């Protein structure tokens, strides 16, 4: 895209928002240890504008916003707020310059009250003492201004609030900081339908107050309801900034996903060679999941797609016994089994390559050798003696190349090699079913193909594979079958090679019929529970 085209786009947008933009980000680049994540992004947002940022996972949205919030420093480019160039070395500096960011994991203290959280670090004083009355009064006022419909007591403990209310407190905190720019990262990801409506109302009020809001979301419906302009990012590049009223959702999806399928994926298995059902779940439910009916066959890769918070990881953890199913039946090879701990799952031949390698997959200060042998060491003695372990062969099998030898601590390995260590760890237990949760997250493009080959190789050897991924091309390119999760349930199943749009429709439930009944259900539930409260007191 040429710079000329770019500025015309921007000018078109600025017309909607009158004055000069409050926030300008110019040519922002970022690389982590030589891996380029952002390739020079321009973005602007005017006061009183909701500017949506969309793009697939890995497009660079979060990195860009973290740069704005002072969490990362950009490798190149500048940030201009109200005409003044800024350089943030710490989140506090960004905060002082008027930028607040609301992450999905809130930055609140559960054991403190709402008012104490809002004014943390800036408690108003009257002489020596904290003016608690003023603090609570101001908090109440702030809350009332933009959230009059959901009264939150300023002296309530934050840990007792619902997620939606906690989010409201975060917004109040941003307002009390006199923030001019508010970044919201997937704010609706963990909200129920009726809460989403309230959030929209809040965002609109903030917009009317003249705040500039950067709104990251996957859900196109929300974006069209709220945003004036939309910036589409892809692979660390800006694709386009468009006015919301000049684009349809189909066009937007095309901009987001319209990539050349140059990525290499190993060839799929022959469907006729698909083995018997390895794992069968019927009526599986946890606190998060419900109605899970699932078959995974030997030798196939079953892909799992869905938005963040749709229950993908929970499904994996339930099968693996980390947060086991509370209801329903699980069968392996047709025999009913009970899996209540990872140890039992492993004994049944299940392996789990988890989403977060560093906290759940590896012992970082230990050697490659010890990490590869980790799961094998957890096996029962009898089984362990059946499976002799040869770390060197396993490393060769996963094509792990380390110049430091097998004694090297894994924390010094690259992401791709770390992931290979995790896979080798499970190979050592000769698993029948391996669950991959985001197998290529944080792995550079070159190394991804290697991981994909390994996964397909496993399936070709008759191992059943469940692969969760939020990268649609990966799910589509790898899977023999795909299930799509939404709200803790399986929303639908697709055969090999669906389009990205098909998956997105199932994942977001764009057809409103279902969403509406859900909203109704939630309302009824709320009424019931408030009636229950009334009866109690």
């Amino acid at each position, binding site marked *: 895209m040429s710079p000329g085209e770019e500025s015309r786009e921007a000018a078109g947008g600025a017309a909607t928002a009158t004055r000069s933009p409050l926030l300008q980000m110019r040519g922002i680049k970022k690389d982590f240890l030589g891996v380029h994540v952002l390739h020079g992004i321009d973005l602007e947002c005017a006061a009183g504008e909701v500017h949506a940022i969309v793009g697939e996972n890995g497009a660079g949205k979060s990195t860009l916003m973290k740069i704005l919030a002072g969490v990362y420093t950009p490798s190149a480019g500048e940030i201009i707020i109200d005409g003044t160039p800024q350089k943030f070395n710490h989140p506090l500096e960004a905060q002082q310059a008027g930028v607040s960011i609301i992450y999905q994991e809130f930055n609140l203290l559960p054991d403190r009250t709402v008012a*104490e959280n809002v004014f*943390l670090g800036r408690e108003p004083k009257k002489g*020596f003492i904290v003016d608690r009355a003023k603090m609570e009064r101001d908090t109440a006022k702030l809350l009332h201004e933009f959230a009059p419909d959901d009264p939150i007591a300023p002296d309530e403990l934050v840990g007792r609030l619902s997620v939606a209310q906690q989010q409201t407190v975060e917004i109040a905190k941003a307002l009390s900081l006199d923030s001019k720019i508010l970044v919201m990262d997937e704010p609706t990801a963990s909200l129920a339908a009726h809460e989403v409506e309230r959030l929209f109302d809040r965002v609109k009020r903030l917009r009317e107050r003249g705040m500039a809001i950067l709104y990251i979301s996957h859900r196109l419906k929300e974006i069209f309801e709220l945003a004036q302009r939309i910036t589409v990012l892809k692979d660390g590049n800006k694709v386009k900034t468009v006015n919301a009223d000049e684009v349809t959702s189909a066009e937007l999806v095309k901009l987001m996903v319209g990539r050349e399928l140059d990525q290499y994926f190993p060839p799929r298995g022959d469907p006729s060679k698909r083995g018997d059902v390895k794992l069968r779940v019927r009526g599986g439910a946890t606190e998060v999941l419900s109605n899970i009916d699932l078959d995974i066959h030997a030798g196939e890769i079953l892909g799992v797609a869905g938005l963040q918070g749709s229950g993908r990881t929970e499904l994996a953890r339930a099968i693996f016994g980390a947060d086991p199913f509370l209801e329903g039946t699980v069968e392996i090879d047709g025999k009913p089994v009970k899996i209540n701990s990872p140890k039992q799952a492993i004994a049944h031949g299940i392996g789990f390559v988890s*989403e*977060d390698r560093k906290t759940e997959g590896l012992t970082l200060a230990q050697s490659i050798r010890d990490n590869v042998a980790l799961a094998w060491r957890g096996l029962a003695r009898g089984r362990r003696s059946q499976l002799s372990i040869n770390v060197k062969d396993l490393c060769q099998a996963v094509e792990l190349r380390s110049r430091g030898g097998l004694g090297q601590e894994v924390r010094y390995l690259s992401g791709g090699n770390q992931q290979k260590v995790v896979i080798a760890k499970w190979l050592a237990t000769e698993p029948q079913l391996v669950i991959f949760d985001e197998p290529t997250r944080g792995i550079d493009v070159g190394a991804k193909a290697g991981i994909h080959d390994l996964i397909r190789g496993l399936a070709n050897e008759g191992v059943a594979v469940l692969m969760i991924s939020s990268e649609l091309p990966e799910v589509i390119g790898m899977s023999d079958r795909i299930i799509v999760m939404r709200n*803790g349930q399986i929303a639908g199943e697709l055969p090999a090679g669906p389009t990205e749009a098909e998956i997105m429709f199932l994942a977001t439930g764009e057809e409103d019929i279902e969403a509406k009944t859900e909203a109704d259900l939630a309302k009824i539930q709320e009424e019931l529970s408030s009636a229950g409260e009334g009866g109690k007191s």
Partner: protein
Amino acid sequence: MTTSTPPVAQHPGPAAQGGSQRSAASRFWRALTKTTTGQVYLALIAILVICWAVVAIKGSNLLTIDSITDMLIRSVALGIVAAGQTLVIIGMSLDLSVAWVISLTSIVAAVVMDGSNGNIVPGILAVLAVGAAIGLANGLIITKLRVNPFIATLGVALIIQSIIESNWDGVVEGVAKGFENSLGYSEIGPLPIAVLLLAAVYLAVWFLLRYTRFGHQLYAVGGSEEVSKLSGVRTHRVLITAHVICAVCAAITGLYLASRLGAGSPLVGTDGGYDLESIAAVVLGGTYLLGGRGSVLGTLAGVFILAILDSTFNALEVNAFAKDVVRGVIIIVAVAAYSFRAKGRRVRKIGAGPAATGNAPQTQTQGANA
């Protein structure tokens, strides 16, 4: 569970002023039954009743004026250290050097006063300065050198121990008679002056925690250092201040014990087991050992509980060393009980990112029920 109506007879005071929207009596009842501190006081009453009954069966009385005064006096030394210990534990730290600080400051008091009433004020000032300096050292080692608090304060304890052992090997005479008579043994009306000192310390610490920025931020730092930092709290300064106050509290206890003994003693702190006992009192008082939650009034109840048990053991003529055993068991049981309760609460973690292993809907329902 249905809440029963409050037994009004038991709380005549607040009930009398009942009025506005919710009567003061019912609010008091709520505070007593619903908050951790309230529950600790209920436990205190229960323990008192049980102990009184057990002692009564033995044919003596636990609740004479004399023995109550005795219990209060017993509570003074431990209570003051425990108040300071509460602060550092709320800040997710710990101070195991207090016992040696008490010994050292009792000696400092004796040495500086040197038997002269004219030196009382310099003696007190010197003791407080020594306490503050040690607290500062603890705080700096923990925050700036990032040494685990438990190791840091034990290390400092060893250093103080050395200083004491290489300079004094027995009781150090020299505490001014005037000081001994005033703080140690005089009374205002029926109340020993030491009890007033205890009350003053608790009032001060309670005020600090509830009404000052330092107090607010200390809870925040104990709850999450990261969140506090991101909100602009100077976490190091807060923690160092807490450590200074804690050590100063220990120094005040040292002063008090010096006034009781009329001398400084190298072993008065460790013999009293003030390091562990103060932590025990804090934990019994419902303060969360991993920081961010707790109250100094709860600690006071914890101190009283330990004092009542102590008096009961004495009345029952239990071997002094059996008391150590019982205390050890009490500490473990208290922490275990509390960590089980905390387990339930920790699940209610804030936010609900995808990595939060799916506590999100759970959080919502729990929030609604609370």
